[in-house]
């Protein structure tokens, strides 16, 4: 177990290092550095201004030198400044990360809950299986921004029940209302996987001899499901969670843009588009780190639950 853990952590570190280099190169090679953009936007900037500003931002150095300097600073714990928000990167990322984790956590919880219920329904009552399947397939087939817009039209604009986007000023009940639509949009795409895996697993478990025996003893169907079958279904759920961690962050980008919620997805997008290398890289690496740790945690959980895998 320790060996495995150590191996995985080394792997994560190597991946992050490779990723940071590749992304730095890609972003650095993108045309239009900040000064080019400023020149195009401001007619008063002269040739001397361009040279002066470029030197001030260190953009006159070769790319590799800049990468090494950046990486060295990062290892010293200096995340640098965001060009886009003119603030220390760490200061911007903190609240965004919290907001995204809340969104993703809620989405995973909701999609797992609904997905499992649908899975259980189709395992227990096979005639509902096509219905549960249809919901799952439709949910995962709809482009998420399209689904989001439809939800906004219905629940925010037409019915006026829920806010169309933004973040709550204060916490509590009000904050929950702001979460409903984005979470629903994200959860729809992911519930299919949960429904499918749990249905498959439960169907198998319910056929097991000890379940038949329990049934023969007259154990109630509900109790049967919750006490005997459910723990077995937890394994595939963790498996799905592990596989989906990466794609969830992608979903967060879309929902955060559409619902104008501050968060990591939107931050990375804005930073890449706005040529804010510092912010883009640190945010990207952090998100990659969090996803890989989540994957690792889910893997470990799975091993703990299922001795066959250990």
């Amino acid at each position, binding site marked *: 177990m320790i060996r495995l853990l150590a191996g995985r952590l080394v792997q994560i570190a190597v991946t992050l290092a490779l990723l940071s280099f590749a992304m730095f190169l890609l972003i650095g090679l993108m045309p239009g550095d900040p000064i*080019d953009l400023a020149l195009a936007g401001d007619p008063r900037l002269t040739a001397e201004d361009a040279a002066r500003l470029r030197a001030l931002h260190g953009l006159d150095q070769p790319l590799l030198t800049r990468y090494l300097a950046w990486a060295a600073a990062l290892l010293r714990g200096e995340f640098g400044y965001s060009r886009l928000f003119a603030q220390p990167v760490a200061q911007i990322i903190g609240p965004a990360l919290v907001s995204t984790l809340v969104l993703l956590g809620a989405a995973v919880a909701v999609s797992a809950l609904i997905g499992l219920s649908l899975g259980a329904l189709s395992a227990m009552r096979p005639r509902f299986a096509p219905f549960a399947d249809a919901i799952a397939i439709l949910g995962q087939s709809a482009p998420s921004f399209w689904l989001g817009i439809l939800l906004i039209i219905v629940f925010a604009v037409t019915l006026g029940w829920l806010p169309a986007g933004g973040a709550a000023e204060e916490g509590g009940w009000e904050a929950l209302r702001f979460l409903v639509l984005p979470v629903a949009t994200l959860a729809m795409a992911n519930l299919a996987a949960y429904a499918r895996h749990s249905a498959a697993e439960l169907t198998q478990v319910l056929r097991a001899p000890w379940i038949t025996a329990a049934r023969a003893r007259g154990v109630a169907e509900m109790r049967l499901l919750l006490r005997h079958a459910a723990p077995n279904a937890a394994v595939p759920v963790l498996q799905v969670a592990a596989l989906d961690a990466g794609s969830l962050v992608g979903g967060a980008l879309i929902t955060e843009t559409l619902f104008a919620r501050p968060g990591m997805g939107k931050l990375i997008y804005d930073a890449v588009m706005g040529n804010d290398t510092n912010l883009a890289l640190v945010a990207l690496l952090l998100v990659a780190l969090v996803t890989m740790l989540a994957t690792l945690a889910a893997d470990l959980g799975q091993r703990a639950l299922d001795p066959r895998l250990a």
Partner: protein
Amino acid sequence: MAARWLTLAFLAFATPALAQPARDSLTIGITQYPATFHPNIESMAAKSYIAGFTRRPLTARDAAWDLTCLGCVTVPTLENGLAVREQTPDGKAGIRVTWELREGWAWGDGTPVTAEDMLFAWQAGRDFTTGFGGSEFYRRAYEAIVESPRRITLRFDQITFEYGASGDWVPLPAHIERARWEAEPRTYRTRSAYETEPTNPALWNGPYRVTATAPGSGVTLERNAHWSGPAPAFRRINIRTIENTAALEAQLLAGQLDMVAGELGLPLEQVTALERRARGRFRFEYKPGLVYEHLDLMLDNPILADRRVRQALILATDRAQIVARLYEGRQPVAHTTVNPLDGMHDDAVRQWPFDAARASALLTEAGWTPGPDGIRRNAAGERLTLELMTTAGNRSREQVQQVIQGMWRQAGIEARIRNEPPRVFFGETVSRRRFTGAALFAWISSPENVPRSTLHSDEIPTAERNWSGQNYPGFRNAEMDALLAALPIELDRERRRALWHRLQAIYAEELPAIPLWFRSDAHVWPLWLEGVRPTGHLTPSSNWVEQWRVAR
């Protein structure tokens, strides 16, 4: 399915709005978040919009486009003696200009705004290691003299007709910022209080001050206790950034926003569609402005070097039809870079109509005759093909681009669409003159802004000039160069007008770019809000927030 959504969308306007609380706050949606709050680092629309509420410049153009005092007492002129011609120490013709600060003007912590603040701003701007954007103003203003706590004089080594305008030279709170700047000018931009503690009241001298910021999503403003002008109507103003315009409209319709600022709000076509459905719920105003949409033509391309081809292109483009159909006629067709609302506009300037026959005649004259596939060819058999570029992802421009492509095809000109993300398009393709045909984008200018950087032959970007300058087409015209040199230093308004008229005549004849239209800002206000006066230029309506009122 479609029909059902439609009905649902209509239903939206049948449901009564939620009960409104007492209106002491105003929530405004805009599409951009300011990169910085520092007055002198980077210029962007979101920053000037918020600055209108929270800071005041000495002078600005008002809604009638006249230069007026916001932070000063009188606009300096030669006539009122606040501006005096003089010789510079090295013998050039110069001018000294004195501004007197408004009495009672104070920072949010109660400290008065004084000449010291102006002096500090000048010093920081003049030290070119500070990293402020444009340095031209500070290069020209070679000396600053504090005459009294409320009077400051600058000496310039050049006289321009805009000598009374203070431009971006605005007060910086010396009692907060000077120490930070003096510690190390090179890193001042990241240590400035505007970046590290934007909610410090001492940074703000407008009717409002910033009380909370959420990077990327919004800014909260509250009344500045030390504001001495007329009290503004709202206790609090929330400014929310929503970049996706569909989401912006949704939040407006859901009642989460009171208004959408026209300066950085919804695209015009989206607002005209909204107005058709929600006329009784919001007030709409369209203000033509100084955003000049046009097609820059690459004059190094032999096809486009021929003036007849350029004229044929404009004749083949039915600009009036596009404006009428896409924008419901709400944007004025442009004839040159000069806006019809500008005092220097020549109403008699050549106005190219849509005329397919003349376009065809001009192209034939230039040697381009119709080929078998409808596309014209020259004697050598080359097809009349031009690249038509714009920024990828800008739906409004992509729309126009496709319409123009269709119109040119009718005239036998093939336009090949090739779009790039903004940072590639502006950062390299256009600014390094790597486009080969036409590039669709806009310029933002100010009233009577001399278009030197876009039309003077010295402003053609090259590697030697660090790619500065914005004469992307590569326009060279000796008379134009002379006009551009003469215009800024001609102080007599009427003589200046004659120069402006000549400039417009050359532009309309030579067509270094094809003028399309001036963009209009589409403002959406709640029915109960009064007194907002859109300006149409770079000084946003928020600079007159004291006049905004709740209707009874």
